[in-house]
């Protein structure tokens, strides 16, 4: 076949291959193995080994629908882990374009799996607040002033689990599921200035920069993108086998299932890169015809 014609392949042919590689593993789930990396293990161990039932964890929804396929499975896994261990959860949102909607959706989904949980006693949703940096600083002085009411309009001071939670000192850990820069603020502002341990679940795009914070011990765990979420799902299921049933629900999107698709698409891309290079170098080796 003419090499030059192959090199000029329409990019839409490649899109078709990627589409097929995405759709087929969604329909026919493969179940590829998930290996655990140290940053995710650190995050899991922090909650599993260093927190006790009744401790309070702040879960900040700092992402919107645009990155939900990566961040939502992390949020679900973290919430399931906390609730399985009897840890109380305060949910907040600092991302303006859909952070609160994501918080409501994921909280409702996970809470429905734990019928014994009571709103205001085991978990609370304080809603969205604008001006994340200013709000984060003020929360060290008084969380109730930043969030005067919860999402239902109940004064924060009247919510049973919030009566003894006034500042960061009353919270054991913050987990932020983040897109963009908000996750960084938890590490370089809240952790650096107020000492609250922070776990960040960023999108894959921003994951590399968080390794610097993790290495400098400004974070206690990192869940990088869909891969990090799938690892956390595996750790949670291994520790709490009753959750395996939840994750096996037909039609439920999980990071572990997503990673099957991810692996197939990566293989397709690697094949195209190799193919392109082989064709390019083969063509280069041929002597050019004189014009």
């Amino acid at each position, binding site marked *: 076949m003419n090499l030059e014609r192959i090199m000029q392949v329409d990019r839409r042919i490649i*899109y078709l291959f990627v589409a097929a590689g995405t759709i087929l593993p969604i329909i026919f789930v493969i179940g590829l193995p998930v290996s655990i990396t140290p940053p995710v293990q650190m995050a899991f161990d922090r909650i599993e080994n260093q927190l006790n039932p009744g401790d309070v964890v702040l879960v900040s929804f700092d992402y919107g629908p645009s990155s939900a396929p*990566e961040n939502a499975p992390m949020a679900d896994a973290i919430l399931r882990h906390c609730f399985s261990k009897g840890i109380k959860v305060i949910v907040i949102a600092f991302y*303006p374009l859909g952070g609160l909607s994501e918080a409501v959706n994921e909280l409702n989904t996970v809470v429905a799996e734990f019928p014994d949980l009571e709103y205001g006693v085991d978990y609370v949703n304080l809603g969205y607040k604008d001006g994340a940096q200013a709000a984060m600083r003020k929360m060290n002085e008084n969380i109730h002033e930043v969030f005067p*009411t919860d999402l239902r309009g109940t004064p924060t001071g009247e919510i049973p689990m919030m009566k003894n939670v006034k500042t960061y000192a009353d919270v054991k850990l913050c987990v932020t599921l983040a897109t963009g820069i908000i996750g960084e603020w938890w590490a370089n*502002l809240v952790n650096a200035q107020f000492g609250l341990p922070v776990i960040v679940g960023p999108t*894959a795009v921003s994951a590399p920069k968080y390794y610097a914070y993790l290495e*400098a011990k400004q974070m206690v765990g990192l869940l990088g993108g869909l891969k990090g979420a799938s690892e956390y799902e595996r750790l949670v299921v291994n520790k709490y086998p009753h959750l395996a049933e939840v994750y096996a629900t037909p039609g439920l999107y999980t990071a572990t299932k*997503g990673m099957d698709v*991810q692996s197939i*698409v990566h293989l397709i891309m690697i094949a195209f890169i190799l193919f392109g290079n082989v064709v390019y170098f083969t063509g280069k080796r041929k002597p050019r015809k004189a014009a």
Partner: protein
Amino acid sequence: MPSLGTWLAAFFTLCMLSFLYKDNPFFRIAESFFAGLSLGYYIGIVANQTIKPNLVLPLMQEFSTNWHLLFAGGLGVMLYFRYIKRVAWVSRWALAVYVGYYVGVNMMQKLHGEVLPQVGDTMLSLNWAGIGTLWNLIMVVGVLSVLIYFYFSAEHKGAVGGISRVGIWFLMVSFGAAFGYTVMGRISLLIGRMVFLVNEWARPLIGLIT
């Protein structure tokens, strides 16, 4: 059967994906809808979740203890004076306060939260104590060579040129890692949309899944 919301979401998803074939009116309509909805959502959520509970209600319910919030509210209103030509200068005062506050916050944040801990973490022991020292050495060489690469007051020749070339290699490795993660992130977003189309729209449509 999928709900109306699911049908709308599927329609707009397909409109956006149609751009992969070529630019078309469906893509532009979906793009405009997205921009408009985002703005409306943002205005609504700020009004309901911040302005109402943090400004309006405290002033209405306990004015005597919350009167100082008038200053913050006033500064916010002042920003909109820029739309009235004669008094546009008023908005600059509010902007000055806003910029001043965030410069102060960010200066401390950068110094305390980034520069000092990151520099401190780069000061690693190079006394041999096993394989960990090798990683320390790589870290120190990487940081120093990249810093030399970005040092433009000396021509990149001789020793400086050699070290800066090492810096380029470290930068290339970091760019490769970042690009790999970016690809993974973008594919994840595609997966999210495809999972929606397959599991929430197409399958219920043909009665394959509840």
